[in-house]
């Protein structure tokens, strides 16, 4: 049962891992994008739409990624170039993205004359199946090597992002931009370009999380009213929990995923806690993490110093 629980936790945590990794990339470059929910919605719709019409998983993911790039481009243009308020722009992106997905989602339903359902061959591609040999290992085989392909993609992206951030020159430059754009500018880094690249990249990764939700969690059927349903906001919370590190986001998403399925695995006759408490738990813990980090005044594990503030070169 514990194995089943952890397995379900991984499945539930993966969309969060996409969203969190994406938002970490964005915030590390100095921009708090509250549009994660909206970008995930757009990714959820387009990923499903393309998967529905082409039956190709790579194309579906590519489409989701592309619309994430586009949505984040709007955000980047407004906040980096036009120096608009980041909070407000992000919220607007959420309003826009949610409207976008629901609007076109409904047209898709009308076109299909009912709830669109992914082809069986597509469902086989995204189904959970053990990797040959590795999947046969007892316990570990089920836990680590028997997932749907998107789970591996999420982990690989998070690992790559982590290495990129911490081990490469470009990653270092990007962190410098997020911490102190003026200093980075003085050091000859093209602040605007760095910000654009990472905000867009982050948006693309977030949108993949949306595609995960509509393709995997939706069970192959498009759900117009709640395709994303707050997972984007949980991802923003998870960024804090993971203290802005993609590597920690992997564990973090597992923990958050575990919370979200915990209520189905706790023996109700022994431990009686209201269900609402389980869903509230991730947010409560994140709040404590946030408070603790600020109390310790630690530079590490707190929000990048330049995050939330637009950089205007002539204002020093």
């Amino acid at each position, binding site marked *: 049962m514990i194995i089943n629980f952890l397995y379900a936790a991984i499945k539930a945590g993966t969309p969060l891992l996409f969203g969190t990794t994406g938002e970490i990339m964005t915030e590390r470059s100095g921009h708090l994008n509250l549009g994660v929910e909206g970008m995930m919605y757009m990714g959820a719709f387009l990923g499903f739409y393309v998967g529905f019409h082409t039956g190709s998983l790579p194309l579906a993911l590519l489409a989701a990624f592309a619309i994430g790039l586009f949505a984040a481009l709007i955000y980047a243009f*407004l906040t980096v170039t036009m120096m608009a308020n980041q909070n407000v722009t992000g919220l*607007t992106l*959420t309003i*826009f993205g949610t409207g976008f997905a*629901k609007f076109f989602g*409904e047209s898709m339903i*009308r076109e299909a004359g009912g709830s669109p359902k992914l082809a069986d061959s597509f469902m086989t591609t995204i189904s959970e199946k053990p990797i040959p040999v590795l999947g046969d290992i007892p316990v570990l085989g089920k836990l680590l090597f028997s997932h749907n392909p998107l789970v591996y993609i999420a982990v690989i992206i998070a690992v790559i992002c982590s290495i990129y951030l911490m081990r490469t020159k470009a990653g270092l430059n990007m962190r410098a931009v997020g911490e102190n754009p003026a200093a980075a500018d003085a050091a000859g880094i093209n602040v605007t370009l760095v910000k654009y690249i990472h905000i867009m990249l982050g948006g693309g990764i977030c949108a993949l999380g949306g595609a995960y939700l509509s393709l995997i969690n939706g069970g192959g059927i498009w759900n117009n009213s709640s395709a994303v349903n707050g997972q984007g906001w949980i991802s923003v919370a998870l960024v*804090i929990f993971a203290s802005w590190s993609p590597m920690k986001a992997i564990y973090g998403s597992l923990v958050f995923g575990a919370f979200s399925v915990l209520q189905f695995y706790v023996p109700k006759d022994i431990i009686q806690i209201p269900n609402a408490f389980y869903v509230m738990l991730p*947010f409560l813990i994140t709040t404590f993490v946030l*408070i603790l980090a600020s109390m310790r005044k630690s530079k590490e594990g707190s929000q990048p110093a330049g995050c939330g503030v637009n950089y205007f070169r002539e204002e020093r």
Partner: protein
Amino acid sequence: MGALGSRTKQEPFIRVVKKTEISIGKTFLLSLFALIAAIMAGGVFILAIGQNPIDVYITIVKGAWRSSIATKGTIKIAIPLLIAAIGITPAFQMKFWNIGAEGQIIMGGIFATYFALNFDYLPHGILLLLMFVAGMVGGGIWGLLPAVFKTRFGTNETLFTLMLNYIALYMIRFFTEGPWRDPASSGFPKIATFSENARLDRIFGVHAGWLIGLVLVAVMFVYLKYTKHGYEISVVGESINTARYAGMNVKRIVLRTMFISGAICGIAGMTQVTGAAYTLGEGVAGGVGFTAITVAWLSKLNPVIILVVSVLFSMLDKGCSVMQSTFGLSSAVSGILQGIILFFILGFDFFTRYRFVFRKAR
């Protein structure tokens, strides 16, 4: 001369310079321009989905005001939006990024509901007054909490208030499934509908929330513009160091302002449960807290403009609900149009603060 020549060569072609000051008339003109551009961009979108933009726009406006029922519906949508946006205003004026209106609305609703469920034997006026105060206290506490941690430990208020939204949301679920569950409803757990005594009175057919909203517009306008508190808020917003140097107690100002901000959002929650829904459900805020932030910002934190903008937004919402029957289009189009309008106004705002300087031709 040679040195100077090489310097001009290195000067970028376009440069952004901060504007010192801009007249109100010019700001208005720019906003109007942004709005027109936004409406045109929305039109391009409508054209792209194969509809006539002018027809669609006319339908939206007509849809919102076509009958007295529709008009009342539009106003009903506007009430929580207006009150919450007014609530956001002092916090944002102080550059305290209170993203927690959603949670503050919910807490106001929860506190008010407590009295509606347990004290409905009280005289109507006293009960409603109690609920009103309870709503303010509930929202106020939810606004105060992040301010306490911000002033004490420097905890990031944007993220903190964001978390509090969800803690509040799941508190509703807790009360719905637990202590406040209506024993009379067998199936899906829900909170009992308020008795007639605990419902907000209607004035001209719409619950009295609109009057509360209008009063708040006037009060907030005066509060920000003509009182010592309002002055303190704008000084803290401009520069905390300046405020300190002037001998202001920054901590107290932040705490006070955030309590007020949360309390007003709490009123929005109170009017929602007692005026619109007659019960407490998870949709009590339903994203209004987030939309209110964009409305307040869009209105440049001016209470009077907030009134206009929140009515316009509600018109869009209500008007789009008839799109389904008229054009067979999803009412979600309102989110897209709101998004486009906001994107444009956010973008155009740039020109009120900055200007481009082109490299001088030699």
